[in-house]
Every structure is written in structure tokens, then in C-alpha cells.
């Protein structure tokens, strides 16, 4: 009854669109070339250099590399989702000292095994190797490691008549900060992390708590956040930051503090050793001529005063190219690779903190005057004994249990509230203690 107008044109154009789209869509599907590895990695400068140099690897071995580069938080979440669901997307993953022992325990990673005599496993820092093992089996090889140390401005110290001792204490630091603070001149005595996060402010604060004699959990896994060392450490931090810290500290993580220090706004900064490469580089830092380093401060005990972190390469057990992946691991963390970086990118860019031989190399020592302190810090950071009292966990600036990511972040938020002046330190710690206890009970640690 109704005239049907020809719908052919509409139908035809829709079909045409789909047909045109199909090959475009199909081309996006993963091509199954033999011997190509998919690598998930973090976007730090050392990894970016490795990506740049990877054609050398392909030249040597004929194995192609597909890179997936993400920032740390996204990477961790992405890789964890994939590995925990055993989806097998990646052949090589970049993980850290936090997850490696846990995933090794779950059987999600291939043990590294023997990489050959030329590789010289004993050249790798023992503390780093320990941080990447579970029950003595190594599950990842480090391509980068760091500890923490104190950065300070020689010129400001001189002007104020101060000298940095060979091993500063936190009391020293507080005294120095008070003398150096001069907001009128735009200088703050000390810059410290304040951004909430288990790997942000809590990484630093855990080392402070450690050295003040505290711990996260006692041997029965009960949180200790309202204990005397915690109160003392966190009060010290909040008071120090309120007196001598920059404004907006609760938004400042590593990156923001790096920007602050390198533009001359901080008298001191206690943070990752990797920042040295930037701060000493005149093309990147305004204070390159005036920066100096000292060990991270201590208080009651030297245990756990400076942290240990390593980014390492590992092979998921679901990988279908295990042998090739192992070849890549061996190449990327070998002595010859470090030489390659040194000669092509300059020695200051050599991956830090992994091999003892790097720290005996005169070229590297010349390019990186801070290297001996970095080496010493990494060697003496002990994830197995991070605290004064015995504890049931490993990890210096974190607790090596999966729940720590959530707990650490929530506690970090509570402490940031204290720093922002929203609540008192005692109230913040009480809140943190309550939520941590809740989480630990829920997770079954506390019976």
C-alpha cells in the first residue's frame, strides 16, 4: 500500500562503509609474525634509551620488538590485569621490587635461571637481586635501580654558614631547614613528597618511620600506625613541612619536587637517587653547579632509612616466546649493553644501580660524581631487615603484600589531610590505623 522508495542507495552506502572499514579493522589485529616480542614497559629515561637502541638487538638476533610504553601507575595496572587473568598479551614485562616476589610466589613469572657465564650474575647488586627473588629464586633481572638520598644546595649552605655532616640526622635536617627558609627570596628550606600514594608520599614516609624505629605491622600483622615512632615521625614531617616546606605540598610528588629543586626553590630534598642525573645536568637544571648529595638522614636506627627500588624485566609464564624473551633480557641487562649506552648516549645516562662493574668504570664515575653515594646506598638498603623490630614482611619503603597498594594509598591520603591542616596528626593516624586494621582483617591477615 505504501510506496517503498528505493532503499538501495542507503543500503549500498552502508555496506560500502563496512566493506571499506573491514580491511582497516582487520589490519589492526595482531599479526602473528614469528619471533616478535611484545614488551610492556615504563616510560622512564633508561627504558626510552633501551627502546632507541633496540634495533641493535634485532640486528644481532633477528628477533623483532613491539613496545608498549606507559606511565608507572597505568603500566602496573595494565600488566597486573593481563598477568592475573593469564591473558598472555605480553612476552616481557617491566615490574618492580614490589610485585616481583609476590608474582614469583604465585607462579605467574618464569624463573630467570642461568643466563650464561658471560652474563656474570654476581656482578648484579646482591641487594637488588634479593629484592627480585622469592625464596632464593630470581624472577626478574634489573635494568635500573635506585635508592634515596639527600640533595642540598652547597651555595645556600655556605651562605648560611652550615656544613652537611657525612651522615646527617633528621634533627640536623630540621635545624638546617629552619635556617635556610626564606620565602621572600622564594627559597623553602626543604621540599618533600606530599602527594598521596603508596609509591608517592608513603614511599618516603615509610623510610622516615623506619629510621625513627617504627614499623607498619608487628609480627601478628597488626597495624602499628598509632605507635610512638609513627606519631613522632609523622609529627616531625608535618611540622617541618609547615615551617619550611613549599605551599601546595600535598600535590607535590617526585616530579613536582624535581621541578622545584631544579629551579632553585628548595634548600634540601630527600628523594630518589635517580634525580641526580637531572639535577647535575646544566641543560636541565638551573642549580647544576650548586647541588651536592649526602646520605639519607637517620634517626634512632639506620635500618630502612633509604629505600630500594628496581625496575626489572621479567617473563610471564604465559609467554609463548620464552627462549627469545630470555635472550632479550640477557642482552638488555648485560655489561655490553651498558657499554653501548655509555658510548652512544653518554656515560651519565648509563642505567644506574644494577651492576657493580658500572661503578668501577672510570668513564661512568667521571660523568656521574654522585655515583659512589648511590652505589653505597643501594648496597646497604636491605629489604629483608627494614626495621628496628622484627617484622613479618619484606620491603624497605613498602610492605610486600598485595593489599599494600590500597592500604598505603589510603594512609597516604590521611597523612596528606594532616599536612593540609584539615586534621591533627593524631587524628589522622587514628583514622589510618582504623582503616588499615579493617583492610587487614578483611584480607585475612588478622585472625
Amino acid at each position, binding site marked *: 500500500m505504501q510506496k517503498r522508495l528505493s532503499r538501495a542507495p542507503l543500503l549500498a552506502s552502508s555496506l560500502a562503509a563496512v566493506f571499506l*572499514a573491514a580491511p*582497516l579493522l582487520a589490519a589492526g589485529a595482531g599479526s602473528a609474525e614469528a619471533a616478535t616480542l*611484545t614488551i610492556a614497559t615504563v616510560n622512564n629515561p633508561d627504558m626510552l634509551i633501551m627502546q632507541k637502541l633496540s634495533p641493535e638487538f634485532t640486528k644481532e638476533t633477528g628477533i623483532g620488538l613491539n613496545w608498549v610504553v606507559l606511565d608507572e601507575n597505568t603500566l602496573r595496572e595494565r600488566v597486573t590485569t593481563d598477568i592475573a*587473568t593469564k591473558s598472555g598479551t605480553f612476552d616481557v614485562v617491566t615490574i618492580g621490587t614490589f610485585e616481583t616476589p609476590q608474582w614469583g610466589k604465585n607462579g605467574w613469572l618464569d624463573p630467570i635461571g642461568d643466563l650464561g657465564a658471560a652474563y656474570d650474575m654476581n656482578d648484579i647488586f646482591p641487594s637488588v637481586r634479593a629484592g627480585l627473588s622469592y625464596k632464593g629464586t630470581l624472577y626478574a633481572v634489573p635494568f635500573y635501580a635506585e635508592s634515596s638520598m639527600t640533595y642540598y644546595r652547597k651555595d645556600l649552605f655556605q651562605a648560611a654558614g652550615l656544613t652537611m655532616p657525612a651522615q646527617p640526622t633528621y634533627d640536623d635536617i630540621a635545624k638546617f631547614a629552619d635556617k635556610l627558609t626564606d620565602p621572600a627570596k622564594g627559597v623553602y628550606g626543604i621540599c618533600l613528597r606530599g602527594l598521596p600514594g603508596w609509591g608517592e608520599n608513603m614511599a618516603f614516609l615509610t623510610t622516615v618511620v623506619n629510621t625513627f624505629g617504627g614499623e607498619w605491622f608487628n609480627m601478628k600483622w597488626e597495624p602499628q600506625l598509632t605507635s610512638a615512632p609513627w606519631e613522632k615521625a609523622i609529627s616531625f614531617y608535618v611540622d617541618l613541612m609547615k615551617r619550611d616546606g613549599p605551599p601546595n605540598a600535598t600535590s607535590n610528588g617526585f*616530579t613536582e619536587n*624535581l*621541578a622545584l629543586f631544579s629551579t632553585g626553590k628548595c634548600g634540601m630534598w630527600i628523594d630518589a637517587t635517580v634525580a641526580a642525573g637531572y639535577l647535575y645536568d646544566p*641543560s636541565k637544571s638551573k642549580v647544576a653547579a650548586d647541588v651536592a648529595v649526602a646520605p639519607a638522614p637517620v634517626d634512632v636506627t639506620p635500618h630502612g632509612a633509604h629505600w630500594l627500588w628496581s625496575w626489572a624485566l621479567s617473563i610471564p609464564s604465559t609467554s609463548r616466546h620464552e627462549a627469545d624473551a630470555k635472550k632479550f633480557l640477557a642482552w638488555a641487562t648485560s655489561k655490553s649493553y651498558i657499554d653501548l649506552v655509555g658510548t652512544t648516549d653518554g656515560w651519565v645516562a648509563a642505567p644506574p644501580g644494577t651492576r657493580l662493574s658500572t661503578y668501577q668504570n672510570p668513564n661512568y664515575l667521571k660523568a656521574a660524581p654522585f655515583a659512589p653515594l648511590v652505589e653505597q646506598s643501594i648496597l646497604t638498603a636491605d629489604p629483608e631487615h627494614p626495621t628496628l623490630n622484627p617484622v613479618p614482611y619484606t620491603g624497605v619503603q613498602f610492605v610486600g603484600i598485595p593489599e599494600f597498594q590500597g592500604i598505603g594509598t589510603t594512609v597516604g591520603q590521611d597523612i596528606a589531610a594532616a599536612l593540609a591542616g584539615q586534621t591533627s596528626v593524631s587524628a589522622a593516624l587514628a583514622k589510618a590505623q582504623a582503616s588499615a586494621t579493617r583492610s587487614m582483617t578483611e584480607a585475612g591477615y588478622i585472625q
Partner: protein
Amino acid sequence: MKEEKASLPGMIAAWVVAFLMFFPILWMLITAFKTEAQAVAIPPLLFFRPVLSSFGAALAQSGYVHFAENSVIVSLVSTALAVIIAFPAAYAMAFQPPRHTQDLLVWMLSTKMLPPVGVLVPIYLICRDVGLLDTRTALVIVDALMNLPIVVWMLYSFFRDIPRDILEAAQMDGVGPRGQMTHLLLPLASPGIASAALLSIILSWNEAFWSINLTAAHAGTLATYIARYSAPEGLFWAMLSAASVLAVAPILVFGSLAQRRMVRGLTVGAVK
């Protein structure tokens, strides 16, 4: 239909607003031409010698072209898909409303209420089992379905603005729904369709969560590309600005072209 020229205060107000809204992007654009040290200088540098090194760093080794390609393909195809499916649905709801049209509309919108973060694992598992991990197809489907309610709502809204008389007249001449849709509605509602399509393209372009989590080396879009520059250890404002400019540029260009189309559509489709 003649439009009167704007008054001077009106015009000034419009330009002030435009400048204020655009300013952060302008600032980002300027920062993209600085070095990292210049980017964090205080007082903020307005005059400096521009360099291209940040762009170089953002482009080096990053596969930008590949990501951009994927972004373009995924946005366009998913939008085409969404519009093709939404068009008849919006037509029906606007001109031949079945019972419960209201509820249907709200239900469609409710499919967007589940935060993607909460369904990551179920969707991930489904994609894995169907073999769609790291494919553009998966992203096209996800984006099309995510944007479908928006496109339906927008088309519905613009269709309701079309006076019924024209369609009724066509109805009386024996033109069926399909004819009405293709020969009448399409030209009449083209500014609305163009807006809906533009919106869908932008939403798909900016869609970061699924494009990071469902892809690996092959199907990532520019949103994945940005994730690479978001928070490395070190100073990166200039590089991030350069990367963002590179990520926004294609769609900004596209948006300006689409803008003109929408304005033209207005003068053609205006009902008198």
C-alpha cells in the same frame, strides 16, 4: 533569513570568552615550543626563542603516526556505526513513539552508568576469550556502544525540533519511513546530525580507559600515546605539551572543518 550584525559589546564579550576558554590550550601550545628548563621558569616566559626539540622528543620512537592512524580509524568507524544504528531509532522515538519512549530513553542512558573502571575485568575476560584483545575492532565496538545512547539522545532532540507538517505531508504522499529518513530528515536535521557525529568522534578520540586497557602494541590510539608522557620520572612539561598538541591537532583541524559544515547546514535546513 537575515541575521542582524552583533553589537560591539556583544562581540567583545564573545571574543573575551573565547580567549579565556582557549587560554590554557594556548598556554600548552606555547609550552610545546619551549625546552624543559624554560617550561618551568617563573615568571612564566612569554618571550623566548622557540625550539622544536620537544616535538622531536615526542615524536621519536613513539609510533605517533601509528597511534594517530588508529585514533582516526576507530573514531570515524565507531561514529559511523553509532549514527547508522541510532538514526532509525531516534526517528522512531521522535515520530512514531512507541509506548514507554521515556523509559526507553532513560534506560539507554543508564547503560552508561556503570563506571568503566568497575567492569574492566569482565570486559577484559570477554575480549580475551573472543580473541579481540589488541584489535581495533574491539575498540570500535566498545566506542560505538558507549556513544550510542548519546547519539540517540541528540538525534532525538534535534528531530523533535523538526516540524511535523513536512513529514506528515510526505506521509500523505505515500512516502514511507525510510524515504522520509533519507530524503527529508537527513537534509533537514543535518546540523543536528553533524553535531551528534562530531560529539561521538570527540568522545571516541578522547576515550582513554578502554584504549589503554584493551590494547597492546597494535591497536593503541592517541590516548595510549599520551599515557606514555603523563608522568615519567623527570621533567616533561614541554614534552607533554608537545605530545598533547600532536594528539589534539588532528581533531582540532577536523572540528574546524565540521564547524563550517554545521553552519552551512543551518542556512540550508532552516525552516521558514
